[in-house]
């Protein structure tokens, strides 16, 4: 086998109240794609942040090409030849694509302080050509979709020409075509001898791309195996250490005829074109489509987060006028954003506050005093129900792992008791165990009479969960399918039905 690039052993890391890594080890060889898997909060990102100098390890040793090294900060990692795409997007929205990619190592000209803007634009263009990515280097990052931003992150990591490349859930925001392209690039790099660490919750990707898999659980190293020698089920078993709940059956169409939400001729700029549909009581309505098809835009418009140009919305037969999210909530509509970091959470506040914050009225006692016993009890209830992994209710949400943050958002909306819930990519970045819990939760909610719109880019998920499926493409609804008719092929056909 090839040279060992990275060897980590005996790694320890504690955060206040959390033993994030205990006696963790990891080995990466040149020319391999090494997948790192584990449940939410298993410590994958933490281990990688130790390797890239974001966190200081409490104990343990790191060897790079056989030599022991200290990596005190991100720059040190870069200089060794280790680059990383972090799980959360880390771009500067006000800067251009090229400026983001070359931040921290801008080519200079003349005296050492003057930037060479042409050069970074040229270099970025070359990079994008290599990646078959059609994007103008001079465009501002804030004008890009999440998927394109993710591609920029990938381009940035590639531009370091590192020997070790770490990708922490790079595909969670990408469309299938973009994932294909990413895999092509990964294989190309692997063949050149680059060592790649690949973190993902999409189990089917492991077989496609990885050579070896390392499994972590609760901050501990479990095992490293060759991908071809194990089954996915075996890996999942190692990850969760128990059997998990699977709903393989598709939901039959509901016989409910009660329309709770009706949207008529919704229009907004180029994003939403003449969208009409209805949602029945107790139904899970899947919204499928490629990234940027306009699904999120429709959801935001219904929720009052963005203004609409024209269109009518009826809730339980009554025409309503939603001008703000506050109005929507009053009408019993809840929305779980796909971008939880930006819209869904107060990252600096604790778990309890985040869960109860949006419905304080419910907990107000005499003279507006907050009934803390009640908020605590309610928060604890949802933390247990969703099995949110947190040392206490007082932990700040920003210190939770990505998947657990998502669960907090869900908990927040459960408290509200909305009749209509719009879930936008509810399982993005969530591990298999938690995913099945969320599926079960959605089913339970629907059975209890709530109506759910589920936007998802993962076709298996849409197919498994929905009673009915609406497919969008470029802002229009291009098809509606019952579960009986729906197949991946048919959905894709509608999803690519461009004008």
């Amino acid at each position, binding site marked *: 086998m090839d040279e060992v690039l990275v060897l980590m052993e005996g790694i320890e890391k504690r955060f206040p109240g959390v033993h994030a890594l205990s006696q963790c080890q990891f080995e990466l060889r040149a020319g391999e794609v090494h997948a790192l898997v584990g449940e939410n909060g298993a410590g994958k990102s933490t281990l990688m942040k130790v390797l890239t100098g974001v966190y200081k390890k409490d104990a343990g040793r790191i060897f790079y090409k056989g030599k022991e090294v200290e990596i005190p900060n991100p*720059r040190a990692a870069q200089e060794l030849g280790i680059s990383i795409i972090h799980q959360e997007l880390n771009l500067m929205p006000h800067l251009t694509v090229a400026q983001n990619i070359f931040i921290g*190592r801008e080519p200079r000209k003349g005296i050492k302080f003057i930037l060479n803007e042409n050069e970074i634009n040229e270099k970025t263009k070359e990079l994008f050509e290599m990646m078959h990515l059609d994007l103008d280097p001079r465009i501002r990052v804030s*004008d890009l979709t999440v998927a394109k931003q993710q591609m920029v992150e990938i381009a940035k990591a590639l531009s370091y020409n590192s020997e070790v490349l770490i990708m922490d859930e790079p595909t969670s925001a990408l469309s299938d075509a973009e994932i294909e392209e990413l895999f092509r690039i990964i294989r190309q790099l692997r063949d050149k001898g680059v060592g790649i660490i690949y973190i993902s919750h999409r189990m089917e990707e492991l077989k496609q791309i990885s050579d070896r898999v390392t499994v972590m659980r609760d901050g501990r190293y479990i095992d490293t195996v060759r991908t071809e020698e194990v089954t996915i089920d075996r890996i999942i078993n190692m990850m969760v250490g128990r059997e998990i709940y699977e709903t393989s059956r598709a939901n039959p169409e509901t016989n409910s005829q009660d329309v709770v939400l009706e949207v008529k001729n919704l229009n907004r700029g180029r994003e939403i074109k003449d969208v009409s549909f209805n949602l029945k009581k107790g139904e899970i309505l899947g919204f499928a489509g490629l990234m940027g098809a306009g699904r999120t835009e429709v959801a935001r418009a219904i929720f009052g987060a963005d203004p609409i140009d024209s269109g009518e919305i009826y809730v339980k037969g009554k025409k309503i006028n939603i001008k703000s999210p506050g109005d929507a909530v009053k009408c019993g509509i809840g929305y779980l954003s796909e971008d939880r970091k930006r819209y869904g959470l107060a990252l600096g506040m604790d778990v309890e506050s985040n869960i109860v914050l949006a419905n304080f009225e419910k907990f107000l006692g005499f003279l507006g005093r907050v009934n803390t016993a009640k908020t605590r009890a309610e928060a604890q209830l949802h933390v247990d129900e969703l099995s949110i992994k947190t040392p206490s209710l007082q932990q700040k949400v920003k210190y939770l792992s990505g998947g657990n943050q998502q669960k907090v958002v869900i908990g927040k909306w459960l408290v509200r008791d909305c009749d209509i819930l719009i879930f936008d990519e509810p399982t993005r970045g969530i591990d298999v165990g938690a995913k099945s819990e969320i599926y079960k939760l959605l089913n339970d909610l629907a059975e209890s009479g709530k109506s759910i719109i589920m936007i998802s880019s993962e076709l298996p998920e849409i197919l498994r969960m929905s009673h009915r499926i609406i497919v969008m493409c470029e802002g229009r609804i291009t098809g509606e399918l019952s579960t009986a008719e729906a197949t991946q092929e048919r959905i894709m056909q509608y999803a690519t039905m461009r004008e």
Partner: protein
Amino acid sequence: MNNKVVKTKNEVIQKRSLLRSDSKQKLLTFSSLIVMFIVFSLASPNFATFNNIVGILLSTAVNGVLAVGVTFVIITAGIDLSVGTVMTFASVMTGVFIAFWNLPIIFGILGGLAAGALCGFINGSLIAKMKLPPFIATLGMLMMTKGLSLVISGTKPIYFLETPVFRKISMGTVFGIPNAVLIFFAAAIIANFILTKTVLGRYTYALGSNEEAARLSGINVDAWKIAIYTLGGLFSGLAGVMMASRLNSAQPALGQGYELEAIAAAVIGGTSLSGGEGTILGTVIGAFIMSVLINGLRILSIPQEWQTVIIGAIVIMAVYADIIRRRQR
């Protein structure tokens, strides 16, 4: 072929976004400046005279330099409340060097600049290293420099009686335009160059846009932050020297209140208090809007108290217009 189509579409988006974010904003503020100018000219014959316009330019010069300096800090999503009193502190130090110690004028100038830069350096260190919130660190600096100016000067103005040349720094003229105005323009051009063409400028935006991302990209965030605050302080120092020269004296009781005008100028010019956005040209226009307004209202004999009320309202309106523009994206 297909490729080409997509490309042009991209270019369209890009052009639009450029127009959207930058030019449109500047066009808007610039046209409000012109409109104000026209209105005041029509309202009073005394407004659009050469002398009055020179007066406006002169009164913009010092405030403008302060506003340019504070623009850097605001773009990093920080704030500097100490620019006004640091300016005064720099004037007093210039006075100490020239009038008390009888050093050559050039030392007085350098001393004033250095005093400003030092204050900025301390601000930056408090914020970056000791993690004080910018609001608090610079508020402390405001009070300290205010007190120190009084202590050092013995609460009396320091006059530059022995060195008549000193006054020329601000009040000498080229074709009737006071030097202070030319210094202001030169400072703005240099600041614009720093902000758009150098590493320091790039990191100024980067810090304001997403500090964590900058850190993870290997940028030494603390060091650059200190550098940016120091640069801001340097501009305050320059303003201090200009002020001392213009008044031919260092006035230790002056200074407080200037910081708010400087911040207002930057904000009117489109600098976002949440960071990542702002330009020097915008700030310069903002500074002119402030002084045209003050001057125009005075010429219309609107009482001082009401002037303040009106300016306050204008600042609110300007920022609200900016918020609306952003929302429309």
